Every structure is written in C-alpha cells, then in structure tokens.
C-alpha cells in the first residue's frame, strides 16, 4: 500500500473533524512557534547583537590614560601623591604602544593624538577635534566600508575624513540624503561628488612669538595666533550615535603622520604649563587599544592597569547585557518547552479521541484485511499532517511575532545605541528544522495512540453498536 493512499484515508479523517484538527494544529503551532522564537532569539543575540556589539569598538575598545595627565587622580605622578601608587608607571611612548599592539589579544593599539581646531567649510565653521587615525583603522569601524568617498591611502596623505553628523552640525546636507528635519533654515544641500575632494580649512592656534611682548597676561590674553591649513575631504563616515571614546562624530579625522603637518600648541596637561615644559617621559597622553575579541577585554584591561595606566572601557557593561539576554532566553525556552509538551499532549489526546470514535471503522478496516501497520500509518500520517500544518503556522507566527518584537525593541534600545539590531536570527534552516521537528514530534506523539488503534480486536469493535 502506497503512503499516498494512506494519506488520503488520513485526510478524510482530518476533514471529518475540521475544528478539532485546527485546534490541535494550533496547539502545535503555539508550541513550535515559541520554541522557534526562542531559538531564533538565542541565535540572534549571539550572532547579531553580541557580534555587532563586540565588533563595535565601543565594546572592544579600551582607553588607557597616563596618570600623569590627570592631576585629580590620587595615584598621579604629578598629583598630591597622598595615596602613592605602588605600581611603576610605564611611559606612553611609541615603543611601549607598539609593544601593546603585539599582545596576542590585542588587535590594534595606537596613541590618541588630537588637536583642537575650528573647521571651515563652505563659509560655515564648527569647533572640532582634529584626530589622528592610524592606517590600520581602515579595517575597523567606523572606517571600514566607507560608502561615501574612501579611507586614507597613506599615513601622510594630507586629507581628512569627516562625519555626516558633523556636516549636519554645519547645516550641510548631502543631496539625496534627506534628513534635514529640525535643522531649521540656512541649510546647504550639496551633491556628494562636490563634497568629496572639497577643500576645508583647519584653523589651529600656535604660539606667536611676536605677541609675547604685547599680550597682556593680566587680561588673560595669550600669545597665540591662528594657523590655517587646507585639506581635502577624502570621505564621509556615518557613525551614528556610536562613539568609541576615541573617534566621535564631532571629530575630523586625519592620517596619523599627516597630523604633524598641522601646527598646533601641544599641551597635554595644564601641568605642562605649570612645569614650564612639555612632559617628555610620556610622549602621548593616552593610548587606544582594541582587543580582538570581547572576551579578551578583561585580561587586557588588567595588564594595562598593571602598567600603571588608568583604563576606561564601556565593554565591561556588555556582560550585563548578555546576562539579561540569557535570562530572557531561558524564559523563552521554558515557555517553548511547556507549550511543546502541552501541544504533544494535545496530539495524543486528539488521536486517542479518534480511536474511540473510529473504533468500529478500525474494526471494519481490519476485517477487510487492513494490517496493523496500515492502521498505524493512517494515524502517523494524520499526526504528521497536524505537525506539518502546526509547524508551518508556528514558524510563520513566530517570524511575524519576532519581527514585531524586534522592531518594538529597536524603538526602545535602538534609540540608545543608534542603530537597529537584529534581535532574532530567523534563518531558513531554522524554519525548516522547526517544521521537521514539529512533524517528528507529532509522529512520535502518535506512536502510542497508533499502537492502541492497531491492536484493536476487530470482533470486539464490530460487535459494539
């Protein structure tokens, strides 16, 4: 007997009790749906959120600052020294920083070098920080995959990269990217082509020897004058509200060697003035370290602290977030498993009811030569159909629900993080696996009822009216 013939017999039975079939399938749908949602959520969190967070330098980045910079730090070499720091502070110079970069857990380490400047572009100006970007950063966000323009070609290329957010601050918009809401009047819309390659002026302050005699210190006048440097725009990045503590949207980025072309007073600490000379032991005030994987963060942080540096990282918080997700996931898992158990009981119940209703029919089938296996097969096919329909509906429902939940969560969390996150990873593989699982579980649930049906005594069944 072909399975398709049995399928026909099974469908007759399912159709005879349409309402019960629907309700049973619905039960399966709820069970499979919540299970699928749970798995997609677990996958989504590990695959997308954790990864996207881990890939974002906010969670893999550390900023280590020399205590010498911060006079408020009790351990500072220049501070009050009441609580004297027992750790020998390692000076932040090129060889130390490249040494940190060699650590196995570290992806990239570079000194944070920035110069305060005013940026002039198309007759508008804004205060910004000119920030040195090492060439290696081209492989990391926010510089990886620049869609407008390009990254720097060399460390001494006299070009800059600006952020879309900063252009927006200057009320300069790129044509076709209409988000001038709330900018008010005076908005300048430029085509992308004309912004890329456009020259902007970086205004910096330098000591002016000629003013040393005329500046009046009692009027807080400083012997400084403006220096103008023209640089072309290489590209525009869009780093949203994400900021690593190093590269912010209010920065203008310049290659790490090219920053030396821009003259600027170089005071890292107010104490440099007090001391009357620039701290020579520490060439740099702070270093930015990106670890290869988020899980390396704690180790690297510990080592940097061992070096006597003061370390700041937001990444520590990621563990809390992941724990929260894990907890949500366990709740989902519990709901999914309970729903599945209930739906399996639903199938068993439905099929046992069917045995009672069809007792005589089964007796007739046996009297006509239907084998035990054939009778069982009818039940298996019925269960498989219920499982299939329930699985498909459950997966579809879970997909819709997860999309709704994801977009709701993004209105809440996405606002804070500044980009949309995929909370659910609902792959085709998962969908197919869930449907298959539903069919298999349903068929397993039908084993007991099917066995009971197959072992019905035909004589006994036919005798009853």
């Amino acid at each position, binding site marked *: 007997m072909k399975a398709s013939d049995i399928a026909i017999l099974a469908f*007759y039975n399912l159709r005879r009790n349409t309402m019960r079939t629907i309700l049973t399938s619905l039960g399966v749908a709820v069970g499979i749906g919540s299970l699928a949602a749970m798995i997609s959520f677990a996958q989504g969190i590990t695959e997308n959120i954790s990864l996207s967070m881990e890939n974002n330098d906010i969670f893999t980045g550390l900023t280590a600052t020399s205590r010498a910079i911060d006079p408020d730090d009790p351990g500072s070499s220049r501070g009050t020294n009441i609580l004297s720091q027992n750790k020998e502070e390692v000076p932040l110079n090129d060889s130390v920083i490249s040494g940190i970069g060699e650590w196995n857990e570290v992806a990239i380490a570079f000194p944070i070098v920035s110069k305060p400047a005013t940026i002039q572009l198309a007759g508008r100006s804004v205060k910004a920080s000119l920030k040195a970007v090492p060439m290696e950063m081209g492989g990391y966000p926010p510089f990886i995959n620049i869609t407008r323009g390009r990254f720097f070609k060399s460390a001494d290329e006299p070009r800059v990269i600006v952020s879309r957010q900063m252009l927006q601050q200057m009320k300069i918009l790129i044509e076709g990217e209409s988000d001038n809401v709330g900018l008010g009047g005076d908005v300048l819309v430029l085509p992308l082509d004309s912004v890329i390659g456009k020259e902007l002026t970086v205004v910096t302050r330098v000591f002016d020897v000629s003013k040393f005699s005329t500046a009046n210190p009692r009027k807080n006048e400083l012997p400084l004058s403006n220096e103008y440097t023209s640089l072309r725009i290489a590209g525009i990045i869009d780093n949203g509200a994400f900021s690593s503590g190093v590269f912010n949207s209010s920065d203008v980025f310049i290659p790490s060697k090219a920053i030396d072309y821009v003259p600027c007073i170089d005071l890292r600490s107010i104490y440099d003035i007090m001391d009357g000379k620039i701290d020579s032991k520490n060439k740099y005030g702070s270093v930015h370290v990106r670890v290869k994987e988020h899980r390396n963060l704690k180790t690297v942080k510990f080592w940097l602290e061992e070096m006597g540096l003061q370390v700041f990282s937001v990444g520590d918080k990621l563990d809390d977030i992941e724990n929260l997700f894990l907890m949500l996931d366990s709740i989902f898992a519990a709901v999914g498993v309970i729903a599945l158990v209930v739906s399996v009981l639903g199938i068993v119940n439905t099929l046992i009811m069917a045995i009672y209703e069809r007792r005589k029919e089964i007796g007739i089938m046996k*009297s*006509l030569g239907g084998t*035990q296996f054939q009778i069982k097969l009818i039940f298996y096919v019925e269960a498989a159909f219920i499982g299939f329909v329930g699985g498909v509906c459950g997966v579809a429902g879970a997909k819709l629900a997860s999309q709704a939940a994801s977009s709701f969560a993004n209105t809440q969390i996405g606002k804070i993080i500044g980009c949309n996150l995929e909370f659910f990873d609902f792959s085709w593989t998962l969908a197919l696996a869930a449907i298959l699982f539903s069919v298999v579980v349903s068929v397993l649930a039908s084993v007991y009822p099917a066995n009971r049906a197959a072992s019905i005594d035909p004589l006994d069944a036919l005798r009853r009216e």
Partner: protein
Amino acid sequence: MALVKVSNLCKTYYKGDNKIYALRNINFDVEEGEFVSIVGKSGSGKSTLLNLLGGMDTTAEGSVSVGGVNILTMSEKQLSQYRKFTVGMIFQSFNLIPSRTAIDNVKLPLIFSNYPRRLRETRACELLYNMGLYNRALHYPSELSGGEAQRVAIARALANKPKIILADEPTGNLDTATSAEIIALLQMFNQKHHITIVMVTHDKETAGRVSHKTVLLSDGEIIKISTNPNP
C-alpha cells in the same frame, strides 16, 4: 480435499467464573464452490463459528484449515493477508463506513491490497455495476436503502476476488422481498462465479432451498448436516 476443513473445533467464553461453551467439537467440511448455510437458534454459536472461519478470532481449540493451512495458528500478518485475499465478510448490519461514499467503501479493500490505483476506480465501478448500484456510487451509506447498503457490502467483500464469502445473517435487517434479492445475488455469485459461500441464517426454509449443505447448530453443537444436491 475440502477447501475448508473444521476439526474438533471448541470455543469457550469465560464470563467471570462462568464458562460458556459457544462451540463444542465442531467437525464439517466446505468443498470448493459449495453454498453452505449454518442455521440454528439465536445464541447457538453461528456467529462464533463464522468469525473463526473468517480469521476474525483465533482463540479456539481444534483447527480450521483453509486450503490446507490452519488459520487458528496464523500470525497477525498472515491473518490480515487471509482476510484480505481469501475471505470476504458480509454482516447483518452492513458495516459500511458511514463517512465514506459507496464507491470509497468498495475501494477500501483495494487500497489495503495495493490494487493499482489507476484500476481501482474501474474495479469499484464494475463491482457496483454488477450489484445494480452504478448510480449509487457517490451516495453515503445513510442515503442508501438496506438492500442497497448490503449490496455495497457484497461488492466490497468481492473486491479482492476472495475464494470464500462469509455472510452473517445478511438478510437479518431486510424485509422479505429485499432478502430474497440478496440471497439470489449470493446464489448467482456461487453458481456463475463459483465463489464458495458460507452463510449464517435462521431461515431454515431458505437455507435448505439455496444451499448444498445446511449445518444445524444447537447450543454450540452440530445436531444435523443436511444436503441438497440441486439447489
């Protein structure tokens, strides 16, 4: 050799401490192509005997050998083969599946026997046509008269071309005229198609008229076997 050979067949039902001897030491033969009637009062063990012949029940002592094989010792699988291909059963209450049309009821044994799907419809139609029910094919059992329902049941019993038709009071629920029709049908199949028939009835007069052999049962015992060489 006889097609069916019943030897020393005993069947006991146990009701609590009570023993009911439904069949006691039954011995008789059914030759191939014979029309055999089993008659007797209600409770005399006719159905019990027929169900043993039909492979519906195997819990009895003695032996029922059909074509030389004792069906009482058959495995479940062999039994279903036997019920599928060797015998066709007809019941007093028709036992049609109420949710399926006449033709679907006739097709059911063809499904179980793996009859080629393309030919199933044709075979079922042919059987219904032979029963004079061609225009009732798509009717549900509830839409059929008693006589029509029993003819559908006969068509279904004949579907897999069995050697033996076992009929348990096939006319018990029918009026006299319709009963005569059904008996005539069975007789026709017996005479034209040489199908062996074992029929249970309590109509001694009809049994004696239509069958080659009439087995009279009383209290589970054969008290007389009468023959009619020219039914």
